[in-house]
């Protein structure tokens, strides 16, 4: 090797050995990440199944008026009928078509699941980030509150809240469910924040003059996206079940059409005894399918953040 008398030119403007060519593109960074995330999710068998099922449920909810044969609230049918040509799943005690109710019910379950999940995650992220970033009095107080929320049993608390809250609407349910399910996410995010806080790029950001707010939201939070997404889907799964439970117990608005209220009506009219078992089975299956689809997508999210879990 000849004597080097000047600074060797830095490595050619190329990629590091094992990374395929990427280069600058005109697509903004966040969109590129989402695109890549969706492609990876699609590549994972479980996530793909979850995404398909979820997609179908969303389509059903959006196009309910086109898919449902009748109005869900019209009491024009003969009550207590079993499955027949007009009423595929039979009718309720008020003469309403169960099948149409099932179709329209998808809307409420989806909305409550996604909104309550989002609200719970928002609270969890905020509290978790604040708590995890600075050890001290604030962290102690928030941790204590989180632990308290974790220890109190969820369903009884929900029942009490729902029973006492004025104004029974879907949004009351969303609030109640969110209020009881933020704690787990907060704990997890707090731990992850504490870990990320010690990473050198956070120190580097502080040296670059970044203030607390920017460090938390521009440095730490973006590196937790798959954790936040996973928390969201977990919360949404719990929310769907919680909503159905509340409706089933009669604590929701009985005039809402949701899978939970179908079960409530089924309970009221002793559907199992009268042979209308489909009226119990169908909404139950629907609830399970929605929850499972969320969970399957969550498996895919794990693979997103840990390449070793990706299927070949």
């Amino acid at each position: 090797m000849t004597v080097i008398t000047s600074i060797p030119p830095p490595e050619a403007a190329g990629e590091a050995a094992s990374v395929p060519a990427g280069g600058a593109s005109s697509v903004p960074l966040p969109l590129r990440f989402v695109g890549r995330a969706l492609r990876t999710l699609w590549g994972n068998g479980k996530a793909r199944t979850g995404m398909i099922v979820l997609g179908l449920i969303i389509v059903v909810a959006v196009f309910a008026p086109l898919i449902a044969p009748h109005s869900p609230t019209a009491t024009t049918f003969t009550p207590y009928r079993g499955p027949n040509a007009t009423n595929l799943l039979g009718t309720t005690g008020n003469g309403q078509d169960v099948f149409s109710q099932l179709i329209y019910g998808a809307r409420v379950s989806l909305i409550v699941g996604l909104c309550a999940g989002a609200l719970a995650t928002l609270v969890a992220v905020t509290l978790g980030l604040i708590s995890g970033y600075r050890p001290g009095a604030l962290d102690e107080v928030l941790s204590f509150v989180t632990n308290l929320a974790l220890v109190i049993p969820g369903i009884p608390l929900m029942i009490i809240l729902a029973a006492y809250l004025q104004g029974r609407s879907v949004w009351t349910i969303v609030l109640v469910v969110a209020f009881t399910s933020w704690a787990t996410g907060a704990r997890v995010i707090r731990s992850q924040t504490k870990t990320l806080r010690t990473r050198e790029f956070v120190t580097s950001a502080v040296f670059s003059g970044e203030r607390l707010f920017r460090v938390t939201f521009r440095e730490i939070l973006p590196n937790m996206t798959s954790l936040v997404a996973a928390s969201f889907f977990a919360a949404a799964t719990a929310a769907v079940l919680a909503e159905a439970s509340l409706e089933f117990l009669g604590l929701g608005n009985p005039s809402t059409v949701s899978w939970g209220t179908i079960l409530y009506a089924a309970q009221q009219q002793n559907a199992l005894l009268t042979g209308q078992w489909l009226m119990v089975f169908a909404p139950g299956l629907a609830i399970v399918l929605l929850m499972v689809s969320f969970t399957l997508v969550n498996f895919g999210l794990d693979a997103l953040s840990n390449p070793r879990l990706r299927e070949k």
Partner: protein
Amino acid sequence: MPLLEARGVNVVYEPNRGQRIWSVRDVDVTLEQGEFVGLVGESGCGKSTLGFALTRMLRPPARLSGGVIRFDGTDIATLDGEQLRRQRRNGFALVLQSGMNALNPVRSVARHFGDILKAHARPGDDLSAAGVRRRGTELLESVRLDAAVLTRFPHELSGGMRQRVSIALALALQPRMIVFDEPTTALDVIVQQAVMETIKDLQRERGFTAILISHDLGVVLDATDRVMVMYAGRIVEDQPAGVMTRGLHHPYTEALLDCYGDPRADEVRLGGIPGTPPDLSLPNAGCSFAPRCPLAEEICLTTDPPLSPLEEGRAACHVRAREEEAINVG
């Protein structure tokens, strides 16, 4: 019969759908019983991957995509599950880079010994708590650690001590071959020297075959009998250690040697190697080092050089092969 005879080892790494990286390309390795061989190269050259492949420790998304690996006559490339475990019992062991990663943080050192002895138990082994303790103390002594370490947990030990515990665990089953993957990289120079001395002593005393994988040519030349230099997934040079600092070598080896120096010398000048290693997701035509090589010629860009005799070993370089032939003929 050589202890290890590997031919045509290829490892492919598939991190995402449709993306393939050939980390190890067509590598042949032959090890005699009792040899201490070094495997040297920089980041991404495939040396750790090769070490893992030879000990059948590859995990998805990396996989062995071709080759024969004959350990003591048996082709272990095709073994799986229980058969592979049994081979491991008396065959080979792997010591990893960071002691912390290899040790279970919630189990004490004594438990680690217990686990490994019980997992590969033979009839007649004393596996009582006292027996494990005795064997553990013996092994810790051989790596210059006090028996008190048995009751400690990994986080209570320093980096150097953890590495010694890893080595002791590797010795527990009296393997015929041990692969050390960057054993001292995470340690500071003084601890590194001490641990390497221990490894050298152990190898001399017990005569196991050893492969030392490192990016540090200095460490490797100091400890080993023979050195293999890797670049872009291939072995580009294979020489006895004593010859490495003299004579002609593969241009990459020479460039690497140029990156070292003696801080005590009157004048010190350090070399570097301009350019980057090639993209391993593309099949290559010609010599992988050619783009960065000061001696590169036409033929280097089109034909991949085979390993041919050079000095007392072999090197994969067209130019050097020609020069060597000229010396031999003339």
